[in-house]
């Protein structure tokens, strides 16, 4: 359990790094195009990969840290028992959604692997490179959602999440 928690944190930090990396690559792209009239063929595509992988591997951490945007207007005024039941229900709903997306996402990924499909873009990377992020991210999210449901059931206090935008 501890190891899993560490992995989730590490993935989120990696995601933060990937977004920073995307910024660096695109800055280079503008410099290369504007000052050297030599646009790169890789910056746009690799930074896009950073976004896909980054977002999907950060999901479990955001769930654990309650960083997903949610509406607390009703749950906030419920008595403690009601709040716990609502929380368990919410986490199981996330788990169910994750399970289906994982299952269907795996199919898309595996189909591309078997067919040897490529992106057909400038870099022509294998199509499964971005597609693998969906089953990977949602498998971990599924586990995290079940863990959160368990934590709530055992009565470990779960803090209300911060609002993002």
């Amino acid at each position: 359990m501890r190891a899993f928690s560490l992995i989730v944190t590490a993935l989120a930090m990696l995601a933060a790094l990937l977004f920073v990396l995307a910024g660096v690559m695109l800055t280079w792209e503008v410099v290369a195009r504007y000052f050297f009239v030599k646009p790169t063929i890789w910056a746009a595509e690799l930074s896009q990969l950073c976004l896909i992988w980054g977002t999907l591997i950060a999901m479990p951490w955001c769930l654990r840290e309650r960083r997903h945007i949610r509406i607390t207007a009703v749950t906030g005024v419920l008595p403690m028992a009601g709040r716990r039941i609502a929380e368990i229900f919410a986490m199981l709903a996330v788990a169910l959604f994750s399970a289906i997306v994982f299952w269907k996402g795996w199919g898309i990924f595996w189909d591309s692997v078997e067919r040897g499909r490529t992106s057909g873009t400038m870099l022509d990377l294998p199509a499964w490179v971005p597609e693998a992020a969906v089953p990977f991210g949602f498998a971990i999210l599924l586990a995290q959602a079940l863990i959160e449901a368990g934590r709530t059931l055992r009565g470990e206090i779960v803090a209300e999440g911060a609002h993002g935008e």
Partner: protein
Amino acid sequence: MIVVLILAALFALLLVGVPVAFALGGVGLGMLLAGGFSPLMAPQAMLSTLDGFILLAVPLFLLMSNVLLKGGVGRDLFAAVQAWVGHWPGGLAVATIVSCGIFAAISGSSVATAATIGTVAIPEMLSRGYERRFVYGLLAAGGTLGILIPPSIPMIVYGFVAEESVLALFLAGVGPGAALVCFFIVFSMGYAAWRGMGRAEVAGWAERRRTTVRALPSIGLAVLVIGAIYSGAATPTEAAAIGFAAALVITGPLLRTLTWTGLREAAVDAMATTTAILLIVAGAKIFGKAIALYRLPQDIAGFIGQTIESPFAFVLVVALVLLVMGLVFEALSMVLIMTPVLLPAAQHLGLDPIWFGVFMVIMVECALITPPVGLNLYVIQSIARVGLGEVARGVLPFLAMMFLTVAILYFWPDLALYIPFRL
């Protein structure tokens, strides 16, 4: 009937506390399964959302404004503007609005704008004897400039959904944004004079020079980002990347206010917000596909087409619907859910899609400052440690000025469209 069922399911999930992204995605997925459509559409929608180059601007703009926030740029900006206009009637209020406007030109988010300027401006204004309610309203409303003045995350999302040029949307936000700044300033000066609220002392020239020099890099950054977009040197996404790089240079070697811890926090915060936002976009995309397959947008557009004939009536009705929705809906979900439903009808009535995008963004600004669900209200509430009610009442006059801007925009569309298309 089916519409009622869908909305009931969505509301139930949202109110139980299922994160917005998974509530939208979950209802969408449920509809696909119930209607006999392929559930493959769910992972496909995930991938295609994250594979959009334009949405890559979201983490980059967030990184830029987080770095600036950690680097204390809000304080420098406010100090400089205050040194110039603080002694006017309502001078501190004017300084607050101008600071919000400048920060809005760097940041794509209303919450970031309200938080950055609010942190410094609220204590300052209160200590000078400004009315509490006025101060809270001003900051909550001033913060919403963040999404009207480019860059703007809701505009990026609208452009993505409507397949319209984000660049054109950005440029179209400039005019109405400037108009709102003017209204806010005029109102604040008048109100402060009427209520006899305090002024700051006239700042000396040395003070002005010192604060301006410190704020100059941030103002330069705003000029760089907008200039890069406007001149065509960079796409909005690339401009966000350059802005991030420049923000690092300014707060790092130049001002020496950014620490390694600050940088790490900025990156982690940008990661969390990006994930939260983009998952909502993806969830809304699944939901959007499902309602399209149930042919609801077509039915609604057809219904509107039969019952509403004038664009004026349409805009009025839509404004009311968005206002009511905005009471309880989170801003981005509104854009995502309503754009595919309303845009076909709007275009059918001859409304320009870019104009319609700007109109939606102003209505979203209203949603951000109306209770019970309004992110900017929460921000001010948590900075000032006051009740929601007090902040919400202070917002009323500013809400009225937003409606005024919408009215002007309707009768004079060039307020938005002149800069992108006729300049």
